[in-house]
């Protein structure tokens, strides 16, 4: 249903059934709008939303921290910084180089967090390392803004950081999809590890989930999935934070089942946010990162307030 809403939303009113009937190769402008503009945008929203929801669920499962989201460990910042540096300080970039470099940035960030936290680090040490790396990357991005080659470059960097799905087509979908799939596979492989972790780190290792393999699997899975998303859509926050919380009661607190339900819910949430963006008229494009932040902040309030009530009981 959300898909139908997405496909019907847009500045031009099109005859949806005629466009679908026309098929992929039809030349009518309605069909072109549907198949080449609206459909890839909706599909991209689904892919990116799923990647972010999945990454958030995995992050919260591994760190057992309700405030965890992929951005916490610097994944989004690493990818965004790589993209910014390449776009505005590097040479002209060909189509595939940008997402590859963004993913490399995400992997580097994750790798740095891992190195900083040290071998066999506990969840809280990982969080600390993540916050430190994130702070450093944010500082670098502030420098990038400061020394932006022109006002236009500065505006571009800001728009990139706000995230957007506008003007994206099938080429962006095909670019991001393989990496998101790789990340998804990694994360699904680690679902039992996340289940075991909910019993505590000691219990998890006694169950056989000791060593570096599983944490690295989770970290790299998140880096691939979220890195690819940032590469094509810019930084979009709060999906990874909000969605696992919404889904957790529905899956009986099971971190494993939470993975795929967060993926689905993340896809839905981002698609709905994009429908809102498409239906908002204005002189400037409403950036989707702004919409998700607007959803996320009140959700935070609700989290705190409901937590407060529990404590009082």
């Amino acid at each position, binding site marked *: 249903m959300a898909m139908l809403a997405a496909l019907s939303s847009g500045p031009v009113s099109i005859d949806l059934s005629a466009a679908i009937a026309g098929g992929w190769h039809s030349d009518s402008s309605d069909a072109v709008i549907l198949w080449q*503009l609206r459909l890839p945008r909706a599909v991209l929203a689904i892919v990116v939303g799923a990647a972010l929801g999945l990454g958030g669920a995995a992050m919260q499962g591994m760190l057992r921290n309700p405030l965890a989201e992929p951005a916490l460990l610097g994944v989004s910042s690493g990818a965004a910084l790589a993209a910014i540096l390449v776009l505005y300080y590097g040479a002209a970039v060909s189509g595939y180089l*940008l997402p590859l470099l963004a993913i490399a940035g995400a992997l580097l960030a994750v790798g740095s967090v891992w190195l900083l936290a040290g071998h066999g680090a506990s969840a809280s040490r990982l969080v600390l390392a993540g916050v430190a790396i994130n702070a450093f990357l944010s500082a670098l991005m502030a420098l990038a803004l400061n020394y932006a080659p022109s006002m236009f470059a500065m505006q571009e960097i800001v728009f990139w950081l706000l995230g957007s799905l506008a003007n994206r087509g099938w080429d962006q979908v095909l670019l991001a999809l393989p990496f998101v799939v790789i990340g998804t596979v990694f994360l699904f492989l680690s679902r039992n590890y996340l289940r075991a972790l909910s019993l505590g780190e000691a219990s998890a290792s006694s169950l056989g989930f000791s060593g570096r393999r599983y944490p690295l699997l989770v970290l790299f899975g998140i880096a691939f999935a979220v890195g690819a998303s940032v590469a094509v859509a810019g930084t979009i926050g709060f999906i990874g934070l909000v969605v696992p919380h919404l889904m957790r009661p529905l899956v009986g607190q099971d971190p494993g089942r939470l993975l795929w339900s967060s993926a689905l819910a993340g896809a839905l949430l981002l698609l709905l946010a994009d429908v809102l963006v498409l239906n908002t008229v204005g002189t400037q494009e409403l950036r989707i990162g702004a919409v998700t932040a607007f959803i996320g902040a009140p959700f935070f309030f609700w989290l705190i307030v409901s937590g407060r009530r529990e404590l009082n009981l």
Partner: protein
Amino acid sequence: MPLLASGPVSAQDRIASLNLCMDQLLLQWVAPERIVSVTWLSGEEYYRRAPLPEHLYLNRAQAEELLPLKPDLVLTGQYGAQRASQRLEQLGFPVVRIPDAYNLAQLQQQLASLQQALGEIPGLRQQQRELKALLDQTPEDGTRNPGALILSANNITYGDGMLEHELLIRAGFTNLAAQQGIQQLGRVSLEQVIDAQPQLLVFYGGEQDFAIAHLAERHPVLREYIETGRVYRLPQELGFCPALAAVDVLQQLMDKRKEIVGQP
């Protein structure tokens, strides 16, 4: 603000400029030994359209920078560098404010004002002549006019009341954005571009490196336009200094129209 009093103007040989467009016009049309200072913007790769002589001082629009240079004419635009130009006026320097041009009539006025300030300059005179010649051509038959649509950075389009719109009209196109009621600037999504089916898609600047602002131009859905040659790219300088590019753009658009209308 009034222009310098009329009367035979002897050639100035210490001209300074506080405005990017004035910089470029001076560098294009006036002998370099007559110029003492232009703004620092003209030193930037992005804005420079004419070679920059070494001896020039690149100013940051501060009166104290121009004082030691003792200019005998200071050119400035309508906006920007207001404090500096007022200060210089108070100190007794001859300051001429050339108004900006937002349509072709104002452009002709701008060139005339420049001529009055600088005296007889061959390059400037030729530009005025060419512009007048193009504008004197009878406009094409309105009913057969092909449709054109401007897709600029960040999905902006130009409607009624903008110089770019007027150039399209004069060249014999219908501006589809203005037809849909857009005044000045408006937003145009790729969907609207496809739906409008312009016969000429006009891009604006952005031929250099990749930029998100120009992401729309790279969308596969526009490939057909690019492959059939139904695109035209307005030069960047049309935005910050129309006097540099308007004549060429108008001529090229007229040629493009002939090309399009000539097609079966």
